[in-house]
Each structure stands twice: as structure tokens, then as C-alpha cells.
């Protein structure tokens, strides 16, 4: 059962990679990721590298899509792209050496009307996924400390 789930997780991005919707052009920069990456690869290893981050991001998106507190906020958004840029962002911040090709936190959350409680719910879902992945609690908090200030760009009301 687990193997099937893993197989699905691995094939999903490949199968739908071409399905990203077009988006208005913007200047790409690692600075768009909203925080400076960890300099050593200790955090990247604590998150079990690319495979661990892929599992965490996929789990986070799936958990949030069925979370009644915030599922509506994802409506009409390109989930294929979201998964890809989130994985890039996490990889970049955790010192995994990826370039981040997504938009800034402010641009990507513009006009979504997100509240503090939405971000709180997302953090809780992320914590649940990091727990499932077996990321040590102190390493979880080091990542959350980088993500938390993004609230100022994400929350609009």
C-alpha cells in the first residue's frame, strides 16, 4: 500500500509537469524565496533531501486541500505549479542548492485575502507533514523561523 502511494507520488509530478498554466512574466531571482538559505547542508539532510522535501510538500498540499479551514484559499490556483515552486523554495531555503523560480511571497499571495489564521493553519499542516517525515522538532522550528516573517507579505487583512 505504501509502495503504491510512493509510486503515485513519484509519478504525479512527471505526469502533470506539462500541465502548468501560463503565467504573466516576472523577474526570476532566488531573492523571491523570501529568506536567506541555510549555509550548510545539515538542514537539507535533516529533511531527508529531495525525497523528503517532495513528500513533505506533496503531503502539505494534499492535507491543505482537504482542510476545511483553508481549502477554499487554493481554489482556482495552479496546484501543479504550487507543488513545483514550493519544492524549489524549500530546497533553496534548506541549503539543498536549488534555484527558486517562483514569484515573491507578496506577488504570489496578492489579492488572496489571506488572514493570520490561514497562515497558522498552513503552519500546523506543515508541522504535521514534517512530523510524518520524521524531521526532528528543533530542525522543524529552524525552518519555520525562516517562513514566519513571510506572514507580513502573505496576510493582507
Amino acid at each position, binding site marked *: 500500500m505504501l509502495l503504491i502511494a510512493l509510486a503515485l507520488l513519484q509519478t504525479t509530478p512527471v505526469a502533470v509537469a506539462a500541465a502548468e498554466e501560463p503565467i504573466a512574466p516576472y523577474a526570476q531571482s532566488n531573492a523571491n524565496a523570501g*529568506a536567506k538559505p541555510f549555509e550548510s547542508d545539515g538542514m537539507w539532510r535533516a529533511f531527508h533531501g529531495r525525497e523528503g522535501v517532495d513528500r513533505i510538500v506533496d503531503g502539505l498540499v494534499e492535507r491543505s486541500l482537504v482542510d476545511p479551514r483553508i481549502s477554499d484559499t487554493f481554489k482556482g490556483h495552479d496546484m501543479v505549479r504550487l507543488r513545483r515552486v514550493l519544492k524549489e523554495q524549500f530546497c533553496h531555503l534548506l541549503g539543498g542548492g536549488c534555484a527558486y523560480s517562483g514569484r515573491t511571497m507578496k506577488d504570489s499571495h496578492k489579492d488572496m485575502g489571506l*488572514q*493570520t*489564521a490561514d497562515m*497558522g493553519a498552513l503552519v500546523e499542516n506543515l508541522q504535521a507533514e514534517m512530523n510524518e517525515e520524521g524531521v526532528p*522538532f528543533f530542525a522543524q522550528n529552524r525552518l519555520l*523561523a525562516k517562513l*514566519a*516573517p513571510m*506572514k507580513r507579505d502573505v496576510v493582507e487583512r
Partner: protein
Amino acid sequence: MRIFLIMLAALVASPAAASDWRGDGKLVLTDGITTVEGAAGGGIATWAVIAGNETERGVGATAHASHVALPDFDLEAYGGAVGLFDRVELSYTRQSFDTRGLGAALGLGRGFTFQQDVFGAKVKLFGDAVWDQDRVLPQVSIGVQHKRANRGAVIAAVGGADDQGTDYYVSATKLFLAQSLLVSGTVRLTEANQLGLLGHGGDKGDDHTAQFEGSAAVLLTRKLAVGGEFRTKPDRLSFAQEDDAYDVFAAWSVHRHVTLTAAYADLGDIATVKNQRGLFVQLQAGF
């Protein structure tokens, strides 16, 4: 009592009244527990956080029941707090200090109990203890606590200047998330004797002095924090030296809405009775 009932009503009503408001916007444990004086904080040290689980979009509330079992005394406190839009906190707590068998020895009568009402208000001025992880700036709040004790005759007899008084404080709290560490400090202008249970001011002085309250806590898991606190207190009654207070605590978020805290507290000598160290237990419900 009436205020307490209103608070309870607000506590019960707030989830239902939440049309555009959202429940549970804060992260678990980031609203602290309740001090024995009713403010959000640790067990004995007040923090700058606002009570309840609500964010700037809602009205949260907490209710607590606390018990400190000391060798010769029992201190009970229960009450509630309302957190308005993560900005203003209004609290009420009633404390009972039972002298048990020692009441007779102190000439008060067996089971003589001191009580006081503590009415509190706190306003967050600036900063965010939790989200602003890229800034050293803490969350800073100011507050008042008006305390009215019920044993005016005894308070006057032991040299207390007044059976009611008001504390003023400024509090700074910061979660250092990358270190899983919460640090808080409060400066309190007070003349309270034993939190106010023995009145305010006395034969050794009758004005407010600055006292300090500090807390440090480590988050061990998302639902468990352990830490320590200390608190200095005035010493204004010559009949009995008043000591500073210390505790080490563990706070466990049993459930989204329930926090259980246990602490080992050292309240020093109280009213000539030596070495009052014991177990502090608190159950808090938060919305």
C-alpha cells in the same frame, strides 16, 4: 462575580458569534498559560502575549483553575480572560489563600482564608512574539492589575497600609523559534504584599517599587514546553520578610483548547512560615 459570569458567557458565546471571525488562529501554546493573577503568561510571571487563541480577526478567551499546594498553605486561583483582536486582554481572577492548620498558630483561627479579586487589563503596544522571527524586537505590552483583598482588619494589624492597590507593568516577550526558546521579562511597579493578599504598602514603606518577573521556556515538542520563572517582590511588612519566588514548569497542550501545567514552585517564607515550596497545577481552557 458578575464580571466572571459575563466572561464565561463571552467565552461560551464567542465561537458561535464568529461569523467572519475565525477560531484557533494562533499556534498552540503561543498564548501562554495563566498567571495566578489572571494575565496570560507563565504561572507567576506575566507575559506580553494576549490571552486566547484568537488573532487580530477575533475575540478569544481563557478560563483557568490553579492550585498551589504548599507545606503549610494552599493558594487557589480561578478566573477568566478575554482577548480582543490579539490587542487587548481583560481578565478577572479570584485568589484564595488558605492558612489551614497554621491559621490557629498565627492567631487567625484554623482555616482562616485570605481572598482577593484581581481585575486586569493589558494592551499590546507593538511587536509580534511569534511571527516576527527576522527581528529581535519583542512583543511589548503594558498592563494594570487592580487588587482588592478581603481581610482589611488583619492587613492593618500586621502593618499593611491598604487592602487594595494597583500594579502597573510593562512586559516584553519573544519566541526565538530557531532556538525553540521563549524568553519573557516584565517590570512591575507594585507595592503589593504577597501578591496583594496581605494588602499594599506597609510599615517599611508605602510606595510603588519596580520589581522584575522573568520566564524562559524551551519547546520540546509542538505540545510540550518546559521552563523556569522567577519573580522579585516588595518587602514592606516588618513582621515577616517576603521572599522572591521561583518555579520550574512543564506546560502540556493536552488538546487544542486545553493546557495542563505542573510546576514546582518555591515561594520562600510566607508570613513568618519558612520554606513554602510545593506543587503548582493549572488547568486552562482556551478559545
